């Protein structure tokens, strides 16, 4: 599944200072959800932690979700409106992570 991931507000520093990543994440690489192959945000976060975050993962995640203070948008929509970790991702979705914790 082709996805565009964008890191901002300082989070890009955790992935070699690259803001935009075009990635291919295969749902079957992760796990089967109720028999059908699909990718949810929870899986994507695990994938990101394993594949994109090069340093200080604790700045990005806390437990199995993003660290409080990190905003997430799926196709420019606040993930709090789409079910957060349970948000289902689709082909060509754009997922943006912005830290609110840096600077002022």
């Amino acid at each position, binding site marked *: 599944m082709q996805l565009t991931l964008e890191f*901002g*507000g*300082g989070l890009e*520093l955790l992935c070699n200072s690259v803001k935009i990543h075009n990635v291919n994440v295969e749902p079957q690489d992760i796990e089967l959800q109720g028999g059908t192959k699909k990718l949810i945000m929870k899986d994507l976060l695990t994938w990101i932690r394993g594949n994109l975050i090069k340093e200080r993962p604790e700045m990005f995640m806390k437990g199995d979700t993003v*660290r*409080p*203070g990190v*905003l997430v*948008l799926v196709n*420019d*929509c*606040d993930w*709090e*409106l*789409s*079910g*957060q970790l*349970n*948000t*289902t991702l*689709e082909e060509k979705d754009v997922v*943006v992570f*912005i*830290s*609110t*914790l*840096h*600077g*002022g």
Partner: protein
Amino acid sequence: MEEEGDAKPKKAGPRQCCVCNQRRAALKRPKTLEQICRECFYRVFEEEIHQVIVENQLFKPGERIAIGASGGKDSTVLAYVLSELNRRNNYGLDLFLLSVDEGITGYRDDSLETVKRNEIQYGLPLKVVSYKDLYGWTMDEMVKMIGLKNNCTFCGVFRRQALDRGAALLKVDKLATGHNADDIAETVLLNILRGDIARLSRCTAITTGEDGPIPRCKPFKYTYEKEIVMYAYFKRLDYFSTECIYSPNAYRGFAREFIKDLERIRPRAILDIIKSGEDFRISTSTKMPEQGTCERCGYISSQKWCKACVLLEGLNRGLPKLGIGRSRGLNQENSKDVKKGNGARSIESKQCGSLDF
């Protein structure tokens, strides 16, 4: 009604904005839990700030206002929104950007570039004052001498005064800063954790220093950080977001994280902490520092010398510990009339003073 309480939809079809009932909602407001579309969000966000400005009479027509601009998200959004509101509502204000160059290579030099772009983008004149010019030391030079232990104390004390000096040079009537609701809630907690009653009692005031030469106000006092960042993101505002290379500041970091954890469980917590701060009553038996002026530079001070002069004297004499912690400081050496309790309290330094009010 396609809304199903807070049942977790897999990917619920496009939810509609609860204000216009037409467009697709783009975010959930932490303050009200409303789901709202971008256009309605812009409107309510700006309108609420306008209401805060009007209800608290933050500005008067014809005033010259400096916006403390770091290039970060809060001050960038503040500069943008204030210039919009000034135009739209005919505030009649002369707005300026005021930046402090601490002299931190790889941090402030980059963020100042952002402020310089903001100067052009928003058409607001910019004034930069530097530690080097004001004090003879850049932050880089200070850190070489004092190390990474108390550097945030130095920086905070000098920044606060530098902003006042810059504001005086610009001949402004007031200084507006980008402190948001999350920052203020955090500061309330920190002041409780430090037992700093004097600061606790004034840190929630929307305008401070009205008795001094340049009052300061916080138009974002009730504005959530989440909304500021969302606003900047949706409007593609140009801001700088890198942590200062010298700021470990663990104590404030924990408080910040605690507030964010609370917000996740109950977003109202932030406004409630501010309310608690506002409604505190200080017992009359609590000793409060008396405000005077520094004998050396004339700046407001509750001591014989202001904190900046004490720290600067330490730097120049090669005694950087002067004025840090509870060790003997200049004020104790020089004046016998300093009350013991007060002396110790105000000499106890506060970390990273960008939030120090």
